[in-house]
């Protein structure tokens, strides 16, 4: 996930801003990490560079 996408993504539940926690990255992308809602605290994983922004009730 490119960090510039932080400008457009938000929490799917309450639409508040997300905070990015990076676990692994290369020059262009965040490969692994977590997106945390600044309002409700819900955590969304970044899996192999793809942000999983499914609401918690729809996760596998």
């Amino acid at each position, binding site marked *: 996930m490119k960090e510039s996408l932080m400008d*457009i*993504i938000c929490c*799917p*539940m309450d*639409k508040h801003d997300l905070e990015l926690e990076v676990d692994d990255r290369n020059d262009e992308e965040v490969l692994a990490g977590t997106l945390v809602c600044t309002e409700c605290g819900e955590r969304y994983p970044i899996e192999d560079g*793809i942000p999983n*922004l499914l*609401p918690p009730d729809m996760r596998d």
Partner: protein
Amino acid sequence: MGVLENKARARLFYKYLSKVYDRVNPFVWNEEMRAEALSLLDIEPGDRVLDVGCGTGFGTEGLLQYTDDVHGLDQSAHQMEKAFRKFGKRGSVRFYRGDAERLPFKDGSFDLVWSSGSIEYWPNPVAALRELRRVVKPGGQVLVVGPDYPKSTVMQRLADAIMLFYDEAEADRMFAEAGFVEVEHHIQQARPGSPRAITTVARAPEA
């Protein structure tokens, strides 16, 4: 409870269907119909476009003919595997897992929103349409392709039992309820006798 059950079923159905999807797809929704749908839109090079329920990436491919800035969202990673193979998992297309009814994007993030062959799997289509309107810029276009309601009674019963089909009147009602203006419908068909797709182009109101 019912809603969640339906969503889980839709996910399983998609998982199964993704194996044959691109093979079956051309009979319902082919490149010609996609080109026709794209011609209904005002996409400028550089426009940021969202493909909701991008699935195997058939619509995404068409959108890339118009702009480089295409974003694909789908609930199923399994369904997107084909799209990853076509465009690269971290190539020019940006992919997200997400729910059409609860989009993870800020208001007015996109110049245009596209969704082909996904609406019939949304348990609450009006809620999802509202979300499409919210994430497109004020005055921006939204295009939704869904299958038209079948003519034969047997097919209608089958359609009603497994998924949501709708006609122009129903589409008008849903898009109006979701807050769209300038709603128009185009019936598209691959060839006589094949299933017909209803393609709706609508505009979000100006701010």
